[in-house]
């Protein structure tokens, strides 16, 4: 019923608008037989100015209300730099935005025909055109240079710290499989063929490789503050994208093609909370949890490439800790290799399903979909 009423109201509104419009047209015809745009231009000139004001007030409100809600400052080394690049570009385009919009709408108001002036035949001016070609070119050259420098640095394999930790993340519908190399710091070999890949060994781990015996799957992505990390990325079924919004990290995970991303986390989860505690918006209460927002802050891992109906659900917690805490966590992890099971019944080799994230014991995950 409500739906019907809403619908009827809208239809009625349209009819009224059309009738008004029709009346307007008829009266204009009666007045002078030929429609003059003089009055219309006059009023719309004022509207143009009005819109200009509205736009700037609206933009200012957006900045005031929305900026505090945005992601907090970057928690990685390169993220701070790309954020800086973002901000400086934003500043430049902000200036251009304000100047050009003012010029556009001001001219539309100032030179509308109701002022009774004549138009000025002014087809071109080479000096002006050279000026407004050269200035953007110079500014853009600067931005390109800064962007390229940063980009090449982020992906420069020679700039990597040799003591970095390596973590493997594999996307599948619809969760992340996070593999750590365990105590030896080396991953067991993966072989993608019919012999190795099976529902109980989705990653195709070669259990005969002793390096695989201490590898473990984690339910959360644990990182160490200031310790460089190389994410080795892959996907099982369709495209996924490994996205750590707080660290400004994103890289697609492509079935059959390995990708990677190297970065350095710079703030532990606790440090970030302490920082956010000082931010007014983060002090407000989150109605869902009933706590101040900073208290429940956590880093998260998301999928950023459409991968199917539950694309929006590929969430994992990310925890950044000091080395000591990390070592403690590491000691508690259980390798997924279970000797007896692996030797006697290969079909029941430990399986990794991170959809059961809360179940920490790998053996409890056996064979579950």
């Amino acid at each position, binding site marked *: 019923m409500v739906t019907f009423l809403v619908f009827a109201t809208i239809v009625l509104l349209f009819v009224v608008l059309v009738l008004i419009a029709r009346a307007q047209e008829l009266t204009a015809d009666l007045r002078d037989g030929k429609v003059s745009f003089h009055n219309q231009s006059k009023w719309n000139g004022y509207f143009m100015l009005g819109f200009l004001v509205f736009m700037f007030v609206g933009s200012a409100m957006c900045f005031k209300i929305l900026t505090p809600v945005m992601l907090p400052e970057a928690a990685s080394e390169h993220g701070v730099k790309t954020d800086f690049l973002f901000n400086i570009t934003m500043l430049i385009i902000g200036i251009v935005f304000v100047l050009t919009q003012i010029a556009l709408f001001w*001219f539309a108001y100032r030179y509308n025909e109701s002022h009774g002036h004549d138009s000025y035949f002014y087809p071109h001016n080479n000096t002006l055109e050279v000026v407004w070609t050269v200035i953007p070119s110079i500014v*853009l050259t600067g931005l390109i240079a800064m962007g390229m420098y940063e*980009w090449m640095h982020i992906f420069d394999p020679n700039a990597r710290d040799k003591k970095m930790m390596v973590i493997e993340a594999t996307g599948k519908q619809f969760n992340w499989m996070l593999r750590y190399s365990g105590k030896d710091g080396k991953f067991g070999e993966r072989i993608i063929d019919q012999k190795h890949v099976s529902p109980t060994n989705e990653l195709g781990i070669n259990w005969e490789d002793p390096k695989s015996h201490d590898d473990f799957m984690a339910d959360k992505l644990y990182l160490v503050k200031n310790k460089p990390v190389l994410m080795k990325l892959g996907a*099982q079924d369709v495209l996924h994208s490994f996205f750590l919004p707080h660290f400004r990290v994103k890289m697609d995970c492509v079935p059959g093609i390995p990708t990677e991303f190297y970065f350095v986390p710079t703030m532990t989860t606790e440090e970030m909370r302490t920082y956010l505690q000082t931010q007014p918006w983060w002090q407000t209460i989150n109605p869902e949890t009933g706590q101040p*927002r900073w208290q429940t802050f956590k880093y998260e891992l998301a999928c950023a*490439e*459409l991968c199917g109906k539950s694309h*929006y659900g590929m969430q994992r917690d990310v925890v950044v800790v000091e080395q000591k805490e990390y070592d403690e966590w590491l000691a508690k992890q259980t390798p997924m290799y279970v000797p007896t099971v692996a030797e006697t019944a290969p079909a029941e080799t430990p399986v990794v399903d991170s959809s059961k994230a809360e179940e920490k014991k790998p053996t409890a995950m056996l064979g579950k979909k």
Partner: protein
Amino acid sequence: METATAAHTDHHADVHGHEEHHHEETFLTKYIFSQDHKMISKQFLITGIFWGIVGGLLSVLFRLQLGWPNETFPFLESFLGKWAEGGKISQEFYYALVTMHGTILVFFVLTGGLSGTFANLLIPYQVGSRDMASPFINMLSYWFFLGAGVVMFFSFFIQTGPASGGWTAYPPINGLRDTAVNLGSGLGFDLWILGMTLFIVSALLGGLNYIATVLNMRTKGMNMFRLPLTIWALMFTAVIGVLSFPALLAGCVLLEFDRLLDTSFYLNNIIINGNLLGYKGGSPILFQHLFWFLGHPEVYIIILPAMGLVSEVLATHSRKPIFGYKAMVFSILAILVLSFIVWAHHMFVTGLNPNLGAIFTLFTLLIAIPSAIKVFNWIGTVWRGKVRLSSANLFAIGFVSMFISGGLTGIILGNSAIDIQLHDTMFVVAHFHIVMGVSAFFGMFAGVYNWFPRLYGRYMNETLGLIHFYITLIGAYAIFFPMHFMTGLPRRYYTYANFETFNNFNFLAEFISVAAIIVFLGQVLFVVNFFYSIFKGRKVEVEKTVDGHDYGNPWGTTTLEWTSPIERLHGNWPGDIPPVHRWPYDYSVNGREYIPQTEPLKPGEVPHE
């Protein structure tokens, strides 16, 4: 001349004489299988409007989900059945909605609807030709377009629903013909491929025709630098289309091979639930290269016609020549060339070679230079004009405003280092909707309001036009400006509730949804105005009557389209095609408000060239 007597006769009089052969047109040949460029233009426009409503409605549906993720809307179930059980749009249908919204608006409205309408209407009129180079191929172009639309529309009514793997059609999600992987990747995606194939045929037939007509069928005296900017833009658009659409067709054919014939062009080591499938050696990234080799030029296919229309509308209604005509032509050319070497900026984080990313950053940001030139020239055109703020011109001004706002954020996204964070987030959604979606719509509306009298001999209603304009301008900014602040939020999320990080913007999502619904209703108002004005609109004033033909010039334009009678004759001019003596922007010169292109130079007058 006998020509005066029959409005609907076929005139093939050429410049040298008037050989006439009358033949009666039936309803079928006049309205359905018409080979008249003006009728085909109307067919494209009305089909485009239909698709515009459908595409807009889809966005309203998924905005309901995004704005109120915890609510149910029982009336949806009555319309959508199993797609909205209990009044809540299902996940599968949500992704079908976003996929088809993109496909329909990008291809069927802003490519077919926009280029199809205005290239057909304006090219023969403004270059001074009786029709397209091949009217028959032109007709085929429309019918393939309609066929493509029928196939796409049909896919909404099959059991597994339409394609739902994104309008970019990336494999493997769309490369596996398995509804367990993705419901829309079954028959729905086959139909998507078939529809797109027909669409590409249509675009190629149309494009070749447009190019041939502009190059070969200009009237006497119409050298290239006397062409209005609309024609330059539409021709370059067609060139881009002809060069880039085949890449997408090839990409789609190979994709269908992977799906139906188990080839491995795009697939390698696919593991579904622990079962290794037999695909070996393909690359999903290859498809992305093929797709974006069209996909990026495609955004210029969308925006260039709008730029051309806006240039013409701004000059006409400002009663002032377009500022920097040649700079405008060469900047379109620069955009054309650059548009082919920037595609990989859509793929910065696919793991492509970082050196490649750097090169594509360079070219991408370079494209800002011709775009900036164009913006400054438009503003320069309004400056010291005698600006008539009609609906058409307001939309043209709105276009410039939108193009600035959306174009500037492109400088951020084109920079690969910053794009790492912003890629596939709502910031991108905001950027491309403003710069290519909304802008192109503004250009299209400017064109429709301006050339409606040419299409139907009547004006559109100005009052409704103004209401439509302000709703659209304010509403579009209300939707997409705040969306930029959702920088870290991934796009194509059904709900953000699973993430603490993203779950803070629900109030904004709701605001955007309300604005989107209002803007949609505003567009319905446009449609009402359109059909109302076809039948009841104010008629174009007759300025003179020659040989029984009424002539008018509603906006006082210099270009050739209004040297043809108000009624739409097949063949456009009852007598000879008028020759051209000057450039198209002689506004407010020599003490005259405007001088038509057909008027010979006065003794001693220096042409503007």
